[in-house]
């Protein structure tokens, strides 16, 4: 079931959520089998920033009812490290490559986008706009006006497909998607994690996570994700990458039904490293069984 997405042709509609699959580390654990049976139809990198980041102090993980809170803090080698050491390795994957970037100012984003635009290995860019605005403390992506302003500067810097990964922590995700489309985005992706707090399991009043708060993902948020994807797909004409708690082919089908073109799998890969393959197969079976009348 191959899919067209922003001029790319993907073997199936299942990709990974940014920051939830490290193909380089997975190859160390699983060897070449990882490349031979790569579970996703495109690989989305974790978020890359201009400067290297070590990420947040541990603990970084907290399990919730049918969900996971993470406060990883976007550790990455920075743009240079990514271009020099990761990109050549990622280019060996048998699928198109989408690089996810974040910057706290339009200038930073422009630098990132221009540098990636130069590299043939990169097939598309994803902008993570869940970065807090230094002035307001709110996510850049939460305010449609601010989002559009940033995008108008970034958009001209690349001819590659530009996906905007929206923040779910907003009153009106549809308005944000509309702003992204108006400012020239080729696609939007959602949902990122929901802002969440993890209390220490044993000590009163103490946060568990090194960074106190984090983001909630997994089945717990699937119904919220479906509502937001549905809202956005009803609002914009550009393709939508839907994600949030997808565990099975049926869940992926539901995302497609509410208007997604691609479905990203995040947390479920932690439970089942080959979840992408399983889900795309289950989706195939559903389509085979019932034509358009998906199970």
């Amino acid at each position: 079931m191959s899919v067209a997405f922003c001029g790319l042709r993907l073997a199936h509609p299942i990709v990974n959520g940014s920051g939830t699959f490290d193909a380089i580390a997975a190859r160390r654990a699983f060897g070449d089998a990882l490349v031979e049976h790569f579970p996703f139809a495109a690989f989305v990198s974790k978020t890359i920033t201009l400067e290297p980041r070590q990420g947040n102090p541990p603990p970084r993980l907290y399990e919730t009812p049918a969900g996971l809170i993470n406060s990883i803090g976007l550790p990455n080698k920075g743009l240079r490290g990514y271009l020099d050491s990761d990109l050549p390795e990622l280019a060996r994957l048998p699928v198109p490559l989408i690089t996810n970037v974040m910057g706290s100012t339009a200038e930073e984003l422009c630098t990132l986008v221009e540098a990636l635009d130069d590299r043939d290995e990169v097939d598309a860019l994803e902008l993570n706009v869940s970065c807090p605005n230094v002035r307001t403390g709110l996510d850049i992506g939460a305010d449609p006006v601010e989002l559009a302003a940033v995008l108008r500067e970034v958009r001209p810097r690349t001819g590659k497909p530009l996906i905007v990964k929206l923040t779910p922590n907003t009153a009106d995700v549809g308005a944000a998607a509309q702003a992204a489309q108006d400012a020239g985005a080729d696609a939007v992706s959602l949902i990122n994690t929901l802002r969440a707090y993890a209390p220490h399991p044993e000590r009163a009043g103490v946060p568990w996570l090194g960074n106190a708060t984090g983001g909630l993902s997994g089945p717990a948020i699937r119904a919220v994700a479906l509502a937001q994807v549905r809202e956005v797909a009803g609002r914009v004409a550009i393709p939508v990458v839907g994600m949030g708690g997808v565990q099975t082919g049926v869940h992926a089908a539901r995302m497609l039904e509410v208007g997604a073109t691609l479905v990203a799998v995040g947390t479920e890969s932690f439970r089942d490293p080959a979840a992408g393959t399983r889900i795309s197969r289950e989706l195939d079976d559903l389509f085979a069984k019932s034509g358009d009348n998906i199970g």
Partner: protein
Amino acid sequence: MTDEPRTLAPFGRRTVAITERRELGAYVVLAVADTEGPLPRAGQFYMLAAAQRWGGGSDERPFLPRAFSVLRAREAGAGVRLEFMLEAVGPGTERLCELAQGDRLHITGPLGVGFDRPGDGRRALLCGGGVGTAPLAIWQDELLARGAPAPALLGFRDAAHAPGAELLHNARVATDDGSHGHHGLVTDLLAEELDADANAVVYACGPPPMLEAVRALCEARGVACRLALESGMACGFGACFGCVVPLREGGYLRLCVDGPVLDGARLAEVPAH
């Protein structure tokens, strides 16, 4: 590092049957028939989850798989027999401990990097306690099979946990409550052993305070040590960046792909969780 003690895992999770369940004091030992996986290295681990009802325990958990060191492994029938040593401390381990022979497990592994050999004519000294006994058992098996001595020092809380010592050969035991062996810490025994012969590599696994004591002792005496650490893990294969441990040199390392066995010299301290 091409000769690091890391056996690659088949890609993806597979489902295996529990072939045996036995209790050893407060511990449960589960054996599974892994028909698709290789023999692991000592110190490697697997991510485990019950194939049925993984969830619905206290606080509507577990949800993610849990990491367990391999206790023992050998070729058996068409595949490999793997053993794990478990203690019920929360919803995940509670669910695993209630499983019976014939029940199925999802497993991914072997994962991470295990113990390397002492080398340089040094002797191996195994030191640990609690469920940290597990990786030392398979390591002792390997050392003994190579004809190398592998004395073991184990610490346990109390009489209910001391039976864990049966998993190793000739272990010297310490208990916190004095019910078995030495009344006190296993590091008391370790200090004695190092007093007698410090030309050793210490292989340790146990609760963080014990590991920290081992690390500090070895550092003070200039003795090499390899620590099998624990940390909260979501994936076990480097995907989530959740399992990090701070390094002496600064920065973090993912315990699941760069550990769980680390050279003690790389740590300023064994983190509390």
